[in-house]
């Protein structure tokens, strides 16, 4: 929703611009990702949130070259890791980046590791491919990595197979695999969704600790706002294949400027003190991605919808920030309510509110 020159003054590990992904299916073409742009600040965690099917996984899979083609297709856009363009790279070039400069972990650790390979061998594989290590060297390093993800008796564990591990342990192994080559970026696609609550917390703590130690940047996909609050510096809210709001975690949680962000917030249980409010699921369902609407995707469900909303999708509006902190990313929302002439709306953080006062 912005072009590269907007990214200053921050130092970005990765930037994505105007990304579009489609899938050919029997029912027609699914427009899964529509004009998505965001920046991942170096050393920070960016959370991508949104309900199921809104295109979170497809977005990051596009960055990793993991979209199955066919039926998938990246029709537009760019994604840069530092100065390296990722979209449209040849498989061979891409394979020097995946697992090396970008690591990735997935939702279900139980099925994400090869059942017939020893844990150690699966870590060694990354080291061999990217670092050309011998098996013996690699195994030593694998043991050290298992140690780093707090798996005890690493020497013995490296010689075991995935079925001998629990889900939480396997996610630690996945993290070890992803971090084997000290990547600049770690992409975690719902890394705790399949795990027990107590284990979830352990995995998140581990990711945080490793981020402090290694300084990598993290893209964290989740639909759990509790996880966002705990982990994220920046947040991108996705709806129906588009990013509808971006901002710092405080801005998104407390000064949300898009009705969907507010709806998402009200639909999520909160254990913050004094916030014992009633849960309100968002009524209705997202639009058909075979024929995405010309206007705002949230139109049919939005309590504040106006006539223009149905006709045109707004470009992002920049919200005037009250915090005024220079190290915060800009707060932007794609909503007509941010237009200077929009009616004042209860509960929505609006631009004109600040403007009129000043």
């Amino acid at each position, binding site marked *: 929703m912005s072009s590269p020159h907007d990214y200053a003054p921050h130092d970005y590990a990765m930037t994505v611009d105007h990304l579009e992904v489609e899938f050919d299916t029997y029912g027609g073409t699914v427009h899964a990702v529509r004009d998505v742009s965001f920046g991942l600040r170096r050393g920070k965690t960016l959370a991508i949130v949104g309900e199921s099917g809104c295109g979170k996984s497809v977005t990051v899979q596009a960055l*990793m*070259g*993991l979209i*199955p083609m066919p039926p998938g297709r990246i029709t537009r856009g760019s994604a840069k890791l530092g100065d390296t363009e990722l979209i449209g790279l040849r*498989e*061979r070039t*891409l*394979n*020097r*980046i*995946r*697992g*090396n400069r970008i*690591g*990735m972990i*997935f939702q*279900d650790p139980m*099925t*994400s*590791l*090869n*059942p*017939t*390979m*020893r844990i150690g061998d699966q870590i060694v*594989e*990354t080291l061999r*491919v*990217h670092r050309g290590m011998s098996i013996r060297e690699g195994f030593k390093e694998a043991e050290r990595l298992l140690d780093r993800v707090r798996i005890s008796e690493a020497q013995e564990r490296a010689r075991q*197979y995935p*079925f*001998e591990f629990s889900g939480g342990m396997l996610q630690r192994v*996945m993290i070890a*695999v*992803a971090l084997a080559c000290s990547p600049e970026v770690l992409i975690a696609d719902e890394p705790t969704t399949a795990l027990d609550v107590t284990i979830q917390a352990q995995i998140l703590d581990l990711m945080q600790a490793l981020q402090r130690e290694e300084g990598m940047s993290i893209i964290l996909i989740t639909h759990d706002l509790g996880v966002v609050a705990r982990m994220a510096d920046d947040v991108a809210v996705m709806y129906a294949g588009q990013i509808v709001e971006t901002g710092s975690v405080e801005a998104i949680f407390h000064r949300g400027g898009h009705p969907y962000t507010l709806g998402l917030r009200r639909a999520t249980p909160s254990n913050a003190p004094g916030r014992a409010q009633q849960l309100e699921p968002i009524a209705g369902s997202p639009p058909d991605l075979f024929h995405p609407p010309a206007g705002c995707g949230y139109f049919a469900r939005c309590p504040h919808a106006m006539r223009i909303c149905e006709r045109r999708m707004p470009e992002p509006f920049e919200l005037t920030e009250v915090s005024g902190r220079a190290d915060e990313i800009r707060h932007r929302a794609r909503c007509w309510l941010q237009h200077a002439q929009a009616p004042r709306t209860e509960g929505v953080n609006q631009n004109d509110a600040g403007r009129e006062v000043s």
Partner: protein
Amino acid sequence: MWRYTVRRLIQGVITVWFIATATFAAMHMVPGDPLGSERATTESIRQNLEARYGLDKPVFPDQYLIFLGNMARGDFGISFTQQNRSVNDIIREAFPVSAQLGVLAVIFAALGGVLLGALTALNRNRLPDVIIMFLVILGISIPSFVFAALGQLAVVRLNDWTGQSLLPVAGWGTFQHMLLPALVLGLGTMAFLTRLMRSSMLEVVNTDYVRTARAKGVPPLRVFWRHQLRNAVLPVITVLGPAIAAITTGGFVVELVFAIPGLGRTFVEAVQQLDYTLIMGTTVFYGAFLVLMVILVDIIYGWVDPRVRLG
């Protein structure tokens, strides 16, 4: 793994005992006296047999126990129709022939099935897939003697056309003699394994761990060998036991058609001539062999799949 192996071996022994008993019972239920005058060819053979099998004693338990004892010692007795030849000798001579043919056929079937199955799966719904899967249906539904005849015809034509005898049409002796019958013998199983491998490969190509391998930057060829093929081949190994059985029994027909002096042909001839000891001997031998093969395949499976080996 050791306990597992021992348990399987004990089960195997029980199975073989069951086969032996059934064979014994069947032989004694066939109408007519096995040693009736037309059958036992000479007086000396007859006397020999009577003494050996206690034929003057009651069938059960005496004859049965003698029979079991002999089988347990691996003594299959003397042929009814081939003078002065023990069944053991006959098996010892004929089995290696069948074994060579069978091994080659199993190699054809397994390698062909795995490679063709993987190829079709990776080219799903494209031309190679469509063509191979059409041939697979032919391979599964056409009986092997038809292939044998067609194969022989093709070889004759080929030899005529080139003016040289590239491949022998029948007989036994050299490696060239083995090629055509082994191919014919393995064809049906190869078709079956191709179909199995294809569906198993299709399940594996888009698994999460294959995606993980790609996300690690593993090159495509290595993804194929280490992650896809190895896991896709597991179901194929589980049916290798029955596949070996199918090829072994298929050998009966193929050995006859190609005039190969193997155990299959020996068995068919023994049945035609009602050579009781030879029938019983080869039946029990076949039974024991197949049981052993199935156990061996299970052990190999355990070696490939750690969940079985260690679980």
